[in-house]
């Protein structure tokens, strides 16, 4: 027998379950603490997805209990439940799922997650996974005990029966696994649920820790996030191989209808333009398109303007929800959030959302905390390898009042930066979905989003500074200066001077000072108006009295009942001073009210009443 034939005997297909049995680190089971988090995370992600699909406000219960050397994990939801015959395959067959062939945002995608957890459980504890599920009050609850036959990647049912359950609908999973329970660091069940609560403010999450400690992350809102819709792929960023595959297997008979029906945002006009640009007959049978023609088609996709993909396949959180989520979990002074418009990477629409929580009780000297999310799932591991971290490190934070040694890297300051990338397909760096790959389009959007909220923060801070300066100035003019004037005058035994000009100068105000000089036939009145501000000021100045006006150059004179009104229009550049004067008929000292200013803010004028 030839050697090749000898070798051929040993060659056989490997089931995916066998593969992951031997390579479980790929799926996030590489350390004892992490395995626990991964199992809980897969169950909770599924629960949230199920509730969302059924428009049910999620109420999820997580218990981690000691079972000898191992841990018993229980995750229970109030979701729609699973029909009986699907239960074994969903939990005990890898790569079985409803979402793989669908273009819309969801937490799970490949159908590996929960069955991988089941696999890990049976490997480490040797025990089956117990599932209870009920789809409505009219149906009984079904109870299963399952393991995966890894040789063929098929479920093996050990126990199957109906059961009593107090929930009208929902699913409960119990797994025993070898793991270790950690607390007090970012990579822990507690932190994972806290982050999940931030990004799912409509969910109530309850955790019972091994020591019996109960923690509830309550909802911040009763509003469900919008349901993402299924869409067709968008031509932007389409790859040649994918296009050729689509052309080969489509049932459409004409190229133009293929384009119109199997891509999003492709109307008849656009489809025809593309055919024309690619110099292919729109009536051509798609299966007959040659390799070269497919290339032309791809070229045409880039040249012809195609509307951005629809956003309704995505379910971003929205600025308000991010705000509520951050507000709920952090004690801070300021929060800014943003949701960017949709973009596309490799034909997949995506949206980046960002938030920043600043000040309050956050530590000032530590590096900022980065909360990373992909399709509403917190990313806990490999922060250093993630596009979110890279984009944040690339920003020059000195422009936004945070310290950053050497002009790059994670900045230092009392801030938490939140970034959520929502996409029909989030490009993870690995199957364990820990970090987002550095796709330039995504990096760029993250950067823009974070810069947007950082700019808000900076504006907030400079506003705070301004207010503080204003408060300082008020302390000077209302408290300190008056005391100083009294003291200085008393030491010298002199009369206290009028300090309004000094006040105007300190405040950067417009100052109005009136001086009255009695004359033989009446009074000469002058209004000295000076702008101490660094901005030009324009306003109207009124004098209202019951005396006869002899002259008032530059003023509009009006009779109001038996009073006379003088009005000047005053415009002053910074530092400029003008003198307005008039003569009135009166005997002795006239009774004059304070001058009236119109069209100027009260806090920028001294010596006149503002109306």
């Amino acid at each position, binding site marked *: 027998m030839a050697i090749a034939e000898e070798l051929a005997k040993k060659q056989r297909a490997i089931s995916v379950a066998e593969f992951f049995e031997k390579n479980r680190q790929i799926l996030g089971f590489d350390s004892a603490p992490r395995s626990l988090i991964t199992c809980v995370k897969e169950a909770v992600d599924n629960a949230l997805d199920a509730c969302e699909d059924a428009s049910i406000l999620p109420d999820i219960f997580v218990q981690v209990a000691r079972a000898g050397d191992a841990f018993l994990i229980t995750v229970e939801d109030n979701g729609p439940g699973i029909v009986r015959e699907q239960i074994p395959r969903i939990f005990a067959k890898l790569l079985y799922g409803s979402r793989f062939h669908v273009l819309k945002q969801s937490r799970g995608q490949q159908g590996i997650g929960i069955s991988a957890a089941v696999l890990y459980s049976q490997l480490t504890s040797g025990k089956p996974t117990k599932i209870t599920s009920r789809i409505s009050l009219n149906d009984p609850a079904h109870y299963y005990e399952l393991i995966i036959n890894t040789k063929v990647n098929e479920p093996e049912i050990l126990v199957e029966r109906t059961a009593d359950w107090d929930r009208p609908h929902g699913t409960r999973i119990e797994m025993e696994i070898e793991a270790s329970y950690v607390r007090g660091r970012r990579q822990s069940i507690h932190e994972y649920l806290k982050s999940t609560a931030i990004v799912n403010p409509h969910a109530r999450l309850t955790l019972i820790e091994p020591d019996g400690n109960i923690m509830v992350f309550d909802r911040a809102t009763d509003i469900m996030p919008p349901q993402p819709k299924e869409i067709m792929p968008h031509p932007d960023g389409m790859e040649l191989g994918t296009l050729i595959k689509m052309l080969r297997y489509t049932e459409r008979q004409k190229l133009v209808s293929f384009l119109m029906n199997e891509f999003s945002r492709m109307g008849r006009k656009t489809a025809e333009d593309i055919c024309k640009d690619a110099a292919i007959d729109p009536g051509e049978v798609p299966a007959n398109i040659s390799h070269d023609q497919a290339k032309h088609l791809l070229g045409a996709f880039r040249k012809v303007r195609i509307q951005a993909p629809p956003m309704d396949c995505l379910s971003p959180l929205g600025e308000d929800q991010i705000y509520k989520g951050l507000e709920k979990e952090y004690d801070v002074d300021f929060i800014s959030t943003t949701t960017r418009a949709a973009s596309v990477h490799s034909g997949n629409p995506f949206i980046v959302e960002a938030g920043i929580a600043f000040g309050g009780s956050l530590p000032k000297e530590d590096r900022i905390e980065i909360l990373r999310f992909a399709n509403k799932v917190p990313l806990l591991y490999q922060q250093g390898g993630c596009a979110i971290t890279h984009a944040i490190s690339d920003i020059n934070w000195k422009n936004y009042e945070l310290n950053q040694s050497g002009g790059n890297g994670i900045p230092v300051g009392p801030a938490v930066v939140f970034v959520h990338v929502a996409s029909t397909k989030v490009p993870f760096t690995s199957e364990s979905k820990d970090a987002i790959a550095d796709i330039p389009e995504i990096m760029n959007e993250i950067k823009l989003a974070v810069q947007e909220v950082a700019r808000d923060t900076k504006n907030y801070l400079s506003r705070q500074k301004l207010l503080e300066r204003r408060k*300082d100035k008020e*302390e*000077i003019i209302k*408290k*300190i*200066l008056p*005391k*100083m*004037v009294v*003291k*200085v*005058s*008393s*030491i*010298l035994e*002199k009369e206290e*001077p009028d*300090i309004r*000009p*000094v006040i*105007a*100068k*300190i405040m950067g105000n417009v100052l109005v000072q009136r001086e009255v000089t009695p004359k033989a036939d009446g009074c000469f009145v002058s209004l000295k108006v000076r702008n101490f501000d660094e901005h030009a000021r324009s306003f109207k100045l009124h004098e209202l009295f019951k005396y006869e006006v002899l002259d008032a150059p530059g003023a509009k004179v009006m009779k109001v009942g038996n009073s006379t009104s003088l009005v000047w229009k005053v415009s002053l550049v910074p530092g400029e001073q003008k003198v307005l004067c008039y003569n009135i008929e009166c005997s002795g000292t006239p009774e004059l009210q304070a001058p009236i200013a119109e069209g100027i803010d009260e806090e920028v004028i001294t010596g006149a009443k503002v109306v």
Partner: protein
Amino acid sequence: MIEKDELTQRKLLHLINGFYTQLENGEIPALLLPTRTKANIAYDDDAEVWVYGERESTRSAKTTRGAYQLLKTSYVVDFVNTQLKQAKSSTLRELYYISENWGLAKFGEQQESDRLIEDLEIVSELQREDFHIRPEEDGASILGPLRIREQTRRGTKIIHCQDDVGEAGYQVPCNVDALEFLEHDARLVIAIETGGMRDRLIENEFDEKFDAIIIHLKGQPARSTRRLMKRISEELKLPVAVFTDGDPWSYRIFASVAYGSIKSAHLSEYMAAPAAMFVGIRPSDIINYELPNDKLTDQDIRALHSLLSDPRFESEFWKSEVNLQLELNKKSEQQSLAKYGLDFVTDTYLPERLTEMGIL
């Protein structure tokens, strides 16, 4: 005395009048002061001491900090003015406590009021003695062949600082300008940092053997002590030797005696004795005498580096000694000379060093 008080009052009122005029003219009250940092001291060739340079900073009521300072200044001037009128005096500490009643103008800590008094000295070109403000204690003492006359509150006293005093010596009063030097048999003045070393010199009769006036500095010397050394140095034309530990803080003590201190550079002309010489301990002594030593602390190292950029220490001697000390990473105390016996310092170290320096 009365005339001097009137002059002081006039100068202080002039300052307040400045504020008044500014307020009256619609200007924001402000005070111009020299910047009191190491970077702003300059060598005065005539007086041969370090004084404040040209750099000035404005203390203005534009900022809350500045406004509070000016308010407090007004209150302090009012207080001093009243005190002068009533011919009374008070201590720095009393002033700090009196400010308790000043409301907004109250001082947060004594350092702040002490500093404000120094500021007043600078702007008025007077001394705090002129304000009738004394330090809480001075404590320095002298012992040696010198006869003085002191105007005390209880009459004029004539005292010989060797024959008429006990082992503690003659206590230096706050206002040394009220002292008169009558006669002396001294060849030199030796100022000593620590009490233990002072006692050693007295026990070994250093003052009698070498006709020396021994002054105890007690750490960073009080103003009156420095003023006294300045007067002895100039009026009696006696060489002044400063004997300290071998660490950066001691070098600063020497610098404030010989060159003037940074904190009171405005008084250098009045207090610094440029003829004063540094006897030791020198870093090179640590090697030459193989002195017992300690490792430098991080603070010591920082202080030594700071000396390297201090204009007062910009001589070859200090540069090489400071660098040597940094290299050795060691410091020694005066008393480490006791390694060679209790009499070594008085019989060998000091006579040799003083001869070498041309003092003996």
